[in-house]
């Protein structure tokens, strides 16, 4: 089957111009963190929710807020606290005394971009309410079901330290995030720039440069990005290697993995690789796209055994080994 790659490439070049604009606007506020910004864009382009994990002060919240400011969409920031209720999130029915009827009051989730800040600080019922909305893309209040706007993207943050009084997301729920980013510290030069920019000066204003229609259009184009069967097999090899490492010559991982990646991992890896190729202005996926995004798609989908914990091996170590041992096509 001959694919008109030239046409796709040209289309991508044309329609991906907004990516430059977004990154340019975001870089007015955020110094460095290119990896995080790129992954947020991948989430945006492949319609996948993103969980950001990092110690406090790494501009996770600011990055999400700034990204939202560049898109002409409704943005809501929800600070998750232990006393937050599902109704505070999705909305509730209010009794109207004037006409004696219940009126629906929609919650902040009815927005395009949701920043669920410190998602692990709220109890499971609140997390469930959010995660249900994330998967179904609709919310039921009373007897009425309301579809959520498109685009609808949840960008959640959580702090890996200060675990006291937190409610860690269950594996089944964390699996619904397409990407889990591990946000790291900036380097020396970047931190020097941050220091100079933020020293008593107001945060530069960011203007909206893209409308939701452009995002939706780009998403369609992302789905058109060509992915060869060899790459698809490579994705499957990676995912299956986390389930049956022995079959892929990874005997050393056999006792370290309790549960391998779910089929959702294959789906998201497929989608995210296409979005990654799109960001590189390429109309087809290459193994580099899969390898580049693999860690962020897989790190929260592998459950390691007690033996692995005893050996201080993390899910990231397992993913790294798999990615480094599976032969690229």
């Amino acid at each position, binding site marked *: 089957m001959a694919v008109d790659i030239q046409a796709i490439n040209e289309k991508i070049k044309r329609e991906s111009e907004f990516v430059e604009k977004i990154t340019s606007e975001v870089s007015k506020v955020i110094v460095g963190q290119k990896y995080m910004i790129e992954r947020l864009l991948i989430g945006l382009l492949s319609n996948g929710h993103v969980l950001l994990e990092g110690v406090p002060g790494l501009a996770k919240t600011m990055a999400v807020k700034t990204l939202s400011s560049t898109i002409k969409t409704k943005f809501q920031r929800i600070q998750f606290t232990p006393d937050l209720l599902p109704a505070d999130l999705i909305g509730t029915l209010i009794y109207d005394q004037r006409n004696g009827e219940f009126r629906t009051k929609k919650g902040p989730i009815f927005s395009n971009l949701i920043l669920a800040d410190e998602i692990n600080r709220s109890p499971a019922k609140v997390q469930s309410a959010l995660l249900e909305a994330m998967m179904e893309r609709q919310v039921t209040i009373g007897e009425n079901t309301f579809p959520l706007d498109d685009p609808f993207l949840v960008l959640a943050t959580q702090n890996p330290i200060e675990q006291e009084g937190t409610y860690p997301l269950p594996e089944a729920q964390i699996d619904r995030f397409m990407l889990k980013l591990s946000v790291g510290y900036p380097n020396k030069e970047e931190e020097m720039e941050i220091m100079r920019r933020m020293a008593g000066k107001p945060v530069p204003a960011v203007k909206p440069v893209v409308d939701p229609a452009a995002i939706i259009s780009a998403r369609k184009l992302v789905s058109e990005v060509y992915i060869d069967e060899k790459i698809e097999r490579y994705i499957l090899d990676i995912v299956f290697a986390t389930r049956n490492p022995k079959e892929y010559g990874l005997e050393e991982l056999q006792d370290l993995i309790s549960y391998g990646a779910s089929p959702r991992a294959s789906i998201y890896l497929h989608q995210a690789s296409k979005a990654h190729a799109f960001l590189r202005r390429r109309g087809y996926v290459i193994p580099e796209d899969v390898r580049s995004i693999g860690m962020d798609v897989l790190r929260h989908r592998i459950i390691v055994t007690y033996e692995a914990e005893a050996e201080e091996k993390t899910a990231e170590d397992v993913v790294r080994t798999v990615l480094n041992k599976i*032969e690229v096509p």
Partner: protein
Amino acid sequence: MRRAIFELCFLFVLLQSRSFAQTTDSTTVPDSLTEAITASVQANRQEVPQNYTFKFILKISWQSDPTRYEIEKVDNPVLTNFEIVGNASSNWVGEVGGVKKVIRTYEYVLKPQSLGMGYIGGLIIDYKDTRFDETHSLVTNRLEVKVVDPVKETNWTLFLLTGSGLFFLILLTGATAIFIRRKNAREAEQRQQMLQIIPLEETYLNHLKQKVDLKNPNIGESFSVLSKLLKRYLSERYQISALESAIQEIAGELNKSAVSEKIVAQVEEVLNTCDVAKFSGGQVETGTLERCYTLVEDILNRNKREFIESTN
């Protein structure tokens, strides 16, 4: 004449018997055939080097009641050219064939004083026969011992030192020999390994000719073979995991291995082109495959030349 010879032989035998008597002599006082008391002297050497010692032994014995005789006095030997450096005595009483026997032994350790002859004078032993309550004496003969030139004594310390030195020398020589042998083996192995690099490039050049078919209608397959061949070569040549890495990672590893910029650029070009051909789903021109083929060939030839130059 015959008689003269006989007389000479007799004289010789006589002299020999005298010489033997110098080392052993005994005096017997018969009482009855079975109860006689005897005394004998003996030197354990007839000739003694000046720096050696020898033993002079006096033995008094009788076969009867042990209390029959009482040794009252035994004088020290009168010595000429010798001195006493030690002495000891012992008394043995026992039965031999049902007859009681007593042997008393006096042992002297003597040391020569100067070269020449040395003499041990006759000893007088006073004893009392208790049966008859009479006192008698036994006298032994004089012995002569020749003092000869001192012999060189073995210096054990020097011997041990020399022995140890020799042992360590042997050990050191052995260790050095093993070290040199291993070093030579290692160098030979390294030389062998270096020599094997030439066949590596040659092997891959042969693979390139045999496996990459420029006229294959399935051009994507040819690109796939070419890219795998190059990655396999890079893995073997630079000890990197090229087969499991993305192009950027391979380029990074090659840069770390101090590979020339031109080769890295060529590798990147070939692999990127192969990726386009393999994964873009579109048709790629045969000319592109030919260019990639030439680039891979060039990389292999260049590395081969570089290696030969470096070994020369």
